[in-house]
């Protein structure tokens, strides 16, 4: 526990350089080191942003899910700050996954968008959590009741995630079946290595942004308490 606290205390020292190195390695790997795919050509290099962005989206919304359960269980507003911080990063990476997927899809499928199960359910996830952020933005950051209602909404919204994951197995979709998250990955070793580095880099970036955003939300909550204390002091 003490080691964990020490590592957490070093987050602003460790995360920025690690993320920077990871992103640099990702760029070199995706643009230079990875071989050109024979059928799809250079546009397939978008995979090194698209797939990790989708994974980071799952990570962020997983954190929102856990933090929302903690809001209801512990009634601690610090978890609400975590949920809001992770939700905003999740929405960002969902947007990245949707846009890079569309740009990859156009030259390969001939269309930017298809209302198939995977794409549509991902768009629904984006809209669900965009609405969550909007609702939290118009409510008072210190409002515990709003935090609890939002937590219930976020937990229900998370039910879309397993649906997204399973959609390509349950229905015939334009989006391909998983080629990496299986026992026998269908990618050459060199592409798999670059994808691994990219996933690690984007995870570090997402984690950094989540912590940054959570600290900002927490600061907003503390300021609210401080403002009330100053108001009382002035009235006294």
């Amino acid at each position, binding site marked *: 526990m003490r080691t964990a606290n020490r590592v957490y205390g070093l987050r602003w020292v460790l995360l920025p350089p690690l993320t920077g190195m990871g992103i640099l390695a990702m760029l070199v790997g995706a643009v230079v080191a990875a071989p050109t795919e024979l059928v799809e050509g250079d546009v397939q290099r978008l995979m090194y942003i*698209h797939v990790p962005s989708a994974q980071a989206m799952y990570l962020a919304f997983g954190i929102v899910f856990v933090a929302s359960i903690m809001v209801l269980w512990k009634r601690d507003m610090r978890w609400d700050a975590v949920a809001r911080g992770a939700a905003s990063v999740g929405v960002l990476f969902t947007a990245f996954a949707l*846009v890079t997927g569309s740009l990859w899809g156009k030259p390969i499928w001939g269309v930017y968008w298809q209302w198939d199960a995977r794409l549509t359910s991902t768009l629904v996830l984006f809209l669900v959590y965009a609405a969550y952020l909007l609702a939290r933005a118009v409510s008072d950051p210190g409002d515990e009741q709003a935090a609890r209602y939002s937590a219930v909404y976020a937990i229900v919204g998370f039910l879309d995630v397993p649906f997204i994951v399973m959609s390509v197995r349950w229905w015939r979709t334009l989006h391909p079946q998983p080629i990496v998250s299986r026992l026998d990955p269908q990618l050459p070793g060199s592409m798999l290595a670059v994808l691994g580095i990219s996933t690690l880099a984007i995870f570090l970036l997402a984690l950094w942004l989540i912590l940054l955003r959570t600290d900002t939300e927490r600061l907003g909550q503390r300021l609210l308490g401080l403002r009330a204390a100053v108001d009382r002091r002035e009235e006294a």
Partner: protein
Amino acid sequence: MDGQLGYLFAGFAVFWAGLFVYLLLLQTRIRSLTREVDRLEERLADAEADAAETPPRGGPSR
């Protein structure tokens, strides 16, 4: 193939532009919170100065 490079470039550009805008918005929020802290510090200092100048109510009148 040239057209494909356009899509590749657009994908990377969207990623970097999105990240830049997100960080810009976050910086704006942090700046607004910092300004709020400054304002509260000023108000607190004023309230404390007022309290020091005002004689205590119900003081020793015996």
